[in-house]
């Protein structure tokens, strides 16, 4: 029984982290209909920046994160402006290949630059437990991940729903032509959307780097988690991503509770497939673009 409660709580908290990994993907898809394969690799690139900056330049994780947000916003904006925007209106497949290409370049360039060994970002909360009872343990790390993720998701929700920028990207997502007639530069909006999405990925990268650590090749394995939470939440639904993350996290840990750790990941995937079969457009898809 203790283990059951523990699994559910850990699953929910872990799900918050999953949601932080995925939310940028959801935004990009919702706004420009792009399946961004490079999202995971961009996230790991951010992890590397944060690690290197905090170790060798700033000495502070927060400061490094702020610098990395700026750097990654610039990098991803440039990639969007010069590469992805050019093929976006040519159909799904060319854009898919371009993002694949970017992912491959980032992964291998990271290995060339930083080697193949395993890295992590030091976490001040790694050894602090918030709740440490006989019944249940809540680790500071997981709780902090969850709080940060929820904050990021609601901030993003607010930006998209309530600000002028948000209105312009929503306009671009519902009709490119109408938005352009209204004087919105959709290509520029796409660049800003990609930058914003990658900035959420930076925070995902920080949390992943602190909680699990990373290789230059970790991007792809986190990408599948990101895709999973985004599709069950409903592509384009920002709050749905949080729900998706929590479902996946809980499904994995309860899977381990009932059937053992070997099938933990499998149960996660099967849950995703069952939900997608029942709700083929995800649980909360309100902003989805056809």
């Amino acid at each position, binding site marked *: 029984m203790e283990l059951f409660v*523990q699994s559910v709580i850990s699953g929910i908290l872990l799900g918050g982290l999953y949601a932080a990994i995925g939310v940028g993907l959801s935004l990009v898809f919702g706004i420009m209909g792009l399946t961004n394969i490079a999202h995971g690799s961009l996230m790991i690139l951010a992890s590397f920046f944060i690690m290197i900056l905090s170790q060798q330049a700033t000495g502070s994780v927060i400061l490094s994160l702020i610098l990395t947000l700026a750097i990654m916003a610039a990098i991803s904006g440039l990639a969007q402006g010069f590469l992805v925007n050019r093929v976006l209106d040519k159909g799904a497949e060319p854009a898919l290949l371009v993002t694949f290409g970017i992912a491959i370049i980032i992964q291998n360039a990271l*290995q060339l630059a930083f080697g193949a060994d*395993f890295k992590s970002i030091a976490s001040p909360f790694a050894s602090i437990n918030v709740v440490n009872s006989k019944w249940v343990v809540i680790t500071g790390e997981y709780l902090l991940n969850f709080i940060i993720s929820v904050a990021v998701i609601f901030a993003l929700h607010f930006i998209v729903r309530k600000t002028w920028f948000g209105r312009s990207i929503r306009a671009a997502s519902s009709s490119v032509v109408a938005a352009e007639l209204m004087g919105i530069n959709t290509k520029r909006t796409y660049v800003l959307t990609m930058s914003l999405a990658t900035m959420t990925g930076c925070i995902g990268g920080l949390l992943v780097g602190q909680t*699990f650590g990373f290789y230059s090749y970790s991007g792809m394995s986190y990408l599948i988690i990101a895709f999973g939470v985004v599709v069950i939440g409903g592509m384009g639904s920002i709050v749905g991503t949080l729900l998706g993350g929590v479902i996946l996290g809980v499904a994995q840990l309860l899977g381990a509770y009932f059937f053992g750790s070997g099938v933990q*990941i499998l149960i996660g995937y099967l849950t995703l497939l069952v939900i997608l079969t029942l709700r083929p457009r995800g649980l909360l898809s309100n902003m989805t673009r056809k």
Partner: protein
Amino acid sequence: MKKEMYRKILMVALCIVMVFAMAACGGGGSSTGDSSGGSNASTETTGGGEPSAPATTDKTEILVGFAAPLTGPLAIFMGPTPWVEALCLDAINNQNGGILVDGKQLPIRVIYADTESDSNKAMEAATKLVTQDKVDILVGAWTPVGANPISAVAERYEIPAFTFGAPEESWLEGGPYKWATGMHFNYDLLCTDIINMWNKLDTNKKVGFVLDTDVDGATGREVYTRMLEGTEYEIFDPGAYTIGTTDFTSMISKLKEANVEIITADMITPDFTTFWKQCHQYGYIPKVCTINKGMHYEADVENLGDDGGNGITFSSLWDKNFPFSSPLLGMSATEIADLWQSENEGFYPYSIGYDVAMYDILNDVLTRAGTLDKATLLDAILATDIDTVFGNLSFNENQCMVVPAIATQWLPGETFPFEKKVVSSETFPAIPSYDPIIIPATTQK
């Protein structure tokens, strides 16, 4: 009509381009079949097919083809390879003036092909080395992902191959081999030393398995179960886990509940890092934690944070305290490791030992063979009996030379935050060992 003609010509041209591309793609290759020349392959006598008697007089170098994981997760093993290559080839080519082959002193050249840490690409890379570069000997390395497909290529094209860095058991699943040979560690011996080490420690003798579903995990489960049967040890097996698992709550709770004091884990570095951190968070620190696969590198142990890695035990595949030396370099294991540390950053990686041993053996084999004829070369490889940085090595009946894998422990060091000490080496008694310690309770928070 004119337009029609234009189209027709273009279409035929396109077809020709396609034929050219497809048939002549290996084009370089197909022309080397008859005449000499060709792209970067050095001149070779026979085209494909049977290895007939070579007229080696026009050879200018001995080509060693190394299909290696230069990129991907396994690339970590290749870290010191360029350094070792420079050192060893300098010894062979410059100091000894090459190797006497058919009456001519020839230098060795190593050609790399990237396996991308993927077994599909490993086969492609090795095939390219054999058929395009026409290497004289094929080398393949690191884990079954590298060793097994490369051995398959050697068997297919009947070329002598030397593989290393995998468990003997899983390499042999692809056997029996005729052309492929191996320098691998043996799981039975590895586990024997691990259990010997546990014997030296005061625990409740409860062993918990934290094994992945990979080949090492499966082999580990089989071997440990067999060896611990009928002893005072009691096994607790919560079931295998899948690589890439991010949360071990369930596993840790079960281990804790079963009051397991000895953990034997088969995990890659990221999984173990997550697992061990979560163990600490859940307040579960076993007295002994033996980890295979991950935690071979000092940087990984430092990554565990503060004192997290203190006292972790693992099976070391090479250590600078091995009382052996390399005949090619004329240096002892300690001297080689120290030289690495003085010229590079950080703690020496154990794969240096494998790389040096490979060059020791290559040098020895080629010198004894005195020719590049494939069959003679294979016989020379199989007759190897050499003292190298692993001690004395020779092939067993499975065409494998078994190298030590002995119990080692990470302890706080002088030069580096952590340094490793051999703590049990009964399977290779020539290697000195110290007494292991129980994981200090101070690491608990």
